[in-house]
């Protein structure tokens, strides 16, 4: 056996200085685990003095669990010669004199030339590092929690637009799992094809902008279930220290609902404006009705006076085609029509009382056809009338029923002008059925679009650019005030077809 070198009092002062200066505990043990040397830092870390430790088994510095296995480790190395810790180091638990436990990083070296072998152990206190790591983990967990809890979509993309991070909200919006999204091309997996180009452009803009500069844009995402969500994105470029683009980071808010309700609010607003405009119009009509009706009355009177005077002067020889007579008649009729328009405008703001009187439906309808005949001729619309014979007398408000008929005829003419190039035709038919009168007005146009059929009698439903959408609504109200009905029975093959049902007089 070679003499045991006394390392607690090293021969070289340099070595002693080194051992004392190092912040790690340095312990030398023999092959049985008996401590031969224990430096200053060791005393500081463990609370033992070198005297208390030297000569005792090193396991005194270990926790209960390590203590039993340490001898085994040493025996294994001694017999196999295969090192498990030497030159590698590992984190272990150490035990102070007062019994408290703390983490250390243990490196072990074998002292060469010694037989039986001796070992030197370096123990580095990693309490602070552990705490720092734990703090980092906590922060990371918290950040993850924020990501997951966030009610906005958080998304990080690589420069080639692959998904690098997406939070739960983002995955939910797309109805996909996070793992199915990571690494995928964002455009392909999430953006509808019709918006690829737009999103591509937006990202290109972000890529060329300053880091930290936020860009706002909106586009839809397409979920796996086919649902589309409109997302408002705020996107920044990510850059490395050399200002190279390393990706994109974006937060996205689902604004589908808020946009929809904003749109609805806007529509309501528009309707209100429209209603108030109508009310204003009605009031104006009331205000100017008197002024306007005076000259209209004069026009009508002059025209009919002229017509009668022409009759009495026997001008027929000079007016063989009856053109003068027609012109004079029309002047009067158009003046009456203008008066009727004013009256109807006023009816929009006044709940007119309904004035039911016995009337011949054919006469009522014939008068209205007189109103639109000019319009129809001008637009090459053929008016085909089919008046029922010996119909029962109706019980109705002549003016209001004419308002319905006029409205239906005007709609039909406008529909034909807009849509039909061939023979334009409107059929006007009167009949009676089961004690009711019927007025049918049908055209050979395209009919009411299927998606609108359920709503055409709703106020403000219109297909015309300048329409108020009130015509059919008012018409149906009038029909119901008669205890009658106004229904749409058309189909795309034959065109639009409206059926007005009116009561007959009991007399």
């Amino acid at each position, binding site marked *: 056996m070679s003499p045991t070198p006394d390392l607690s009092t090293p021969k070289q002062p340099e070595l002693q200085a080194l051992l004392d200066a190092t912040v790690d505990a340095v312990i030398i043990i023999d092959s049985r685990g008996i401590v031969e040397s224990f430096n200053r830092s060791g005393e500081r870390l463990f609370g033992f003095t070198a005297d208390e430790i030297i000569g005792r088994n090193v396991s005194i510095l270990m926790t209960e669990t390590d203590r039993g296995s340490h001898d085994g480790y040493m025996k294994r190395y001694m017999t196999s010669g295969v090192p498990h810790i030497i030159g590698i180091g590992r984190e272990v638990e150490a035990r102070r004199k007062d019994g408290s436990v703390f983490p250390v990083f243990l490196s072990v070296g074998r002292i060469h030339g010694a037989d039986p072998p001796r070992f030197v152990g370096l123990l580095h206190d990693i309490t602070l590092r552990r705490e720092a790591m734990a703090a980092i983990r906590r922060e990371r967990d918290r950040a993850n929690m924020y990501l997951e809890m966030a009610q906005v979509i958080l998304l990080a993309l690589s420069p080639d637009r692959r998904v690098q991070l997406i939070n739960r909200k983002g995955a939910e919006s797309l109805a996909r799992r996070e793992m199915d999204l990571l690494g995928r091309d964002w455009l392909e997996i999430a953006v509808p094809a019709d918006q690829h180009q737009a999103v591509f452009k937006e990202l290109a803009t972000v890529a060329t902008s300053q880091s930290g500069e936020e860009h706002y844009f909106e586009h839809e995402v397409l979920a796996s279930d086919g649902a589309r969500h409109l997302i408002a994105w705020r996107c920044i470029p990510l850059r490395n220290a050399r200002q190279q683009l390393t990706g994109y980071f974006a937060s996205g808010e689902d604004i589908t609902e808020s946009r929809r309700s904003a749109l609805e609010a806007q529509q309501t607003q528009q309707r209100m404006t429209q209603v108030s405009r109508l009310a204003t119009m009605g009031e104006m009509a009331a205000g100017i*009705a*008197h*002024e*306007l*009706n*005076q*000259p*209209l*009355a*004069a*026009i*009508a*009177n*002059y025209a*009919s*006076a*002229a017509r*009668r*005077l022409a009759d*009495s002067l026997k001008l027929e020889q000079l007016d063989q085609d009856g053109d003068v007579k027609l012109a004079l008649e029309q002047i*009067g009729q158009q*003046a*009456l029509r*203008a*008066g009727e328009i004013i*009256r109807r405008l006023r009816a929009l703001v006044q709940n007119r*009382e309904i004035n039911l009187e016995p009337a011949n439906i054919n006469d009522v309808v014939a008068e209205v056809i007189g109103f639109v005949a000019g319009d129809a001729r001008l637009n090459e619309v053929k008016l085909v009338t089919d008046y029922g014979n010996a119909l029962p007398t109706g019980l109705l408000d002549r003016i209001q029923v004419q308002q319905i008929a006029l409205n239906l005829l005007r709609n039909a003419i406008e529909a034909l002008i807009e849509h039909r190039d061939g023979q334009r035709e409107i059929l006007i038919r009167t009949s009676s059925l089961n004690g009711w009168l019927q007025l049918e007005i049908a055209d050979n146009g395209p009919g009411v679009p299927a998606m609108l059929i359920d709503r055409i009698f709703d106020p403000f439903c219109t297909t015309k650019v300048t329409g108020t959408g009130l015509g059919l609504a008012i018409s149906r109200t009038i029909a119901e005030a008669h205890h009658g009905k106004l229904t749409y029975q058309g189909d795309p093959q034959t065109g639009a077809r409206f059926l007005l049902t009116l009561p007959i007089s009991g007399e």
Partner: protein
Amino acid sequence: MTRSVTVFVVDDDDAVRSSLRLLLKSVGLPTVAYASAQEYLAAWHPDQPGCLVLDVRMPGMSGIELQAELNHRGAIMPVIFISGHGDIPMAVEAIQHGAFDFLQKPFRDQDLIDRVQRALASDGENRKLLLQRETLRQRFESLTPREQEVLLLVTQGKANKVMAGDLGVSQRTVEIHRARVMEKMGAQSLAQLVRMMLELESDTPQSRVN
């Protein structure tokens, strides 16, 4: 002096007034037009037959006010209101105050002409009745007090003999009075005489027949 049947138009709007005159003239109706209610009232005469076409709203005295004034004066001429406003409450009020009819401007010529002609017919009828009653009254007043006494008794159905007793005269004297009454009243029969008395007693003038 007999006044000829005339349609009067009162409207402050020159064109309406002029066109109405022309329209009524074209169907052969003599028409006189005034621009205000005051002008019409100044020319008004109770014996003037015809009808009045009256604008509801006019500056100064309105059509409704003119109607009230005419009612106050006991006028019997039918009034057809015309209005550019056509407000229902006003029409109702006018009709309640005896208006013959109400038309909204502009109106169909035939609507006005029909109403004017019905109004003229109604006015003629009323005036004829009034004239008859006036004639009867004049005839009645031309009777002596004794003759009036006899007339009343005759129409009560009393026989000559009874009347002679009542009046304390001879039956012959009663017969002479009776013949004078029949002659002065222009009655052909006792029945006609009774009708005349009923007409006279119903003193409420049939001023408006709607």
